[in-house]
């Protein structure tokens, strides 16, 4: 993602949606930096995806999946 504009209300970024690029308004996510993953709704970023939280949840979920694979009840 590239970010342009200094006015916080007009800060916007070019966001890659699996190959399709669109300009997205970043007024609600001042913390977003190039390279971040964001949640977009009607042209606005509404949150920055928290990679650490996602990894933590997912490690737990994978653990449940692995237990089931071994025939153990989670």
């Amino acid at each position, binding site marked *: 993602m590239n970010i342009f504009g200094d006015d916080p209300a007009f800060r916007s970024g070019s966001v890659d949606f699996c190959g399709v690029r669109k300009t997205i308004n970043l007024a609600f996510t001042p913390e977003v930096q190039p390279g971040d993953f964001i949640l977009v709704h*009607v042209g606005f970023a509404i*949150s920055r995806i928290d990679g650490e939280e996602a990894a933590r949840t997912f490690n737990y979920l994978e653990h449940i999946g692995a237990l089931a694979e071994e025939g153990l009840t989670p």
Partner: protein
Amino acid sequence: MRYVDEYRDPQIAHALAGKVAFMATRPWVLMEVCGGQTHTLMRYGIGDLLPKGIELVHGPGCPVCVTPLELIDQAIHIAGLPGVIFTSYGDMLRVPGSHCDLFQARARGADVRVVYSPMDALNIARENPTKKIVFFGVGFETTAPANAMAVWEARRQGLSNFSMLVSHVLVPPAMRLILESPKNRVQGFIGPGHVCTIMGFREYQELAEEFHVPIVVAGFEPVDLLEAISMLVAQLEEGRAEVENQYSRSVEYQGNIAAQRVMRDVFTVADRKWRGIGEIAQSGLVLRKEFAAHNAERVFQLEPLFVEEPKECISALVLQGLKKPVDCPAFGKRCTPMSPLGAPMVSAEGACAAWYQYKRHA
């Protein structure tokens, strides 16, 4: 795509369903409030993965579905006026008014345009200074900050030819209505992850405490929903009624403060009629007086309307989780996505449309 594909992993999905089956000692009725979640549950057949006793009912969380018939009629009226360019999210165009829909209005010559964002409607207003540009501002809390920003910017930029026809609704008052009903069957809620991304989940804690009902704020992928269901069943089996956050990669307790600020600056809470349900106190957002110049109801001096819903449509009961779409005699016969009687058959997020698409042959 990262943060999406891994939440569609079938092995994890099956493991979570197994966990639910292991934990559940009795039947439980769970409701997903949000239409986006209804769509995922139907598309991936998640109900079929779960043990028989776990019943999923669909909530009122489809903004297209709950926009009152009167407002659709008013939108069609405005769209037909000379010099108006009427702009809307695409899914509103097929919603039946009492005589026609916005697509049919367009076929008769009205200038009706689909936009991706309310900011696109602002651009149209800037490029067409001699026209009146109206945006149909429909949605829940997720969409409200974007729509608020468009009105805020219209005022800042002096775009006096831009106005908004507002039909904004709020989730917690609708959940309260469901919980207060003597016929309520819902024992746990899958909370709306995108609404909570904006609003946080303080209001949901109040509901959980007051009604002793567990609520798990969840994402929109199959694994998200299955994890939320397993968290709900764990709470119910243990007799707990708390708010838990399954969607922590996006939702924080306080929500998105910047978005809430713009929402509060532009909108104020008011009573609002929900299609199929009726008026719910303090359940909607309207433009503040300071923005009256951008309020389409004022600009076009709309009179209050009252229109009867089609009698055969049971959408009120479907939206409150009291009936399933297949319980309706018109379902799939006189009411289909191509020719909908009621709004839940229109939007992809509507419970009836989701059942029609994924479960009508089940």
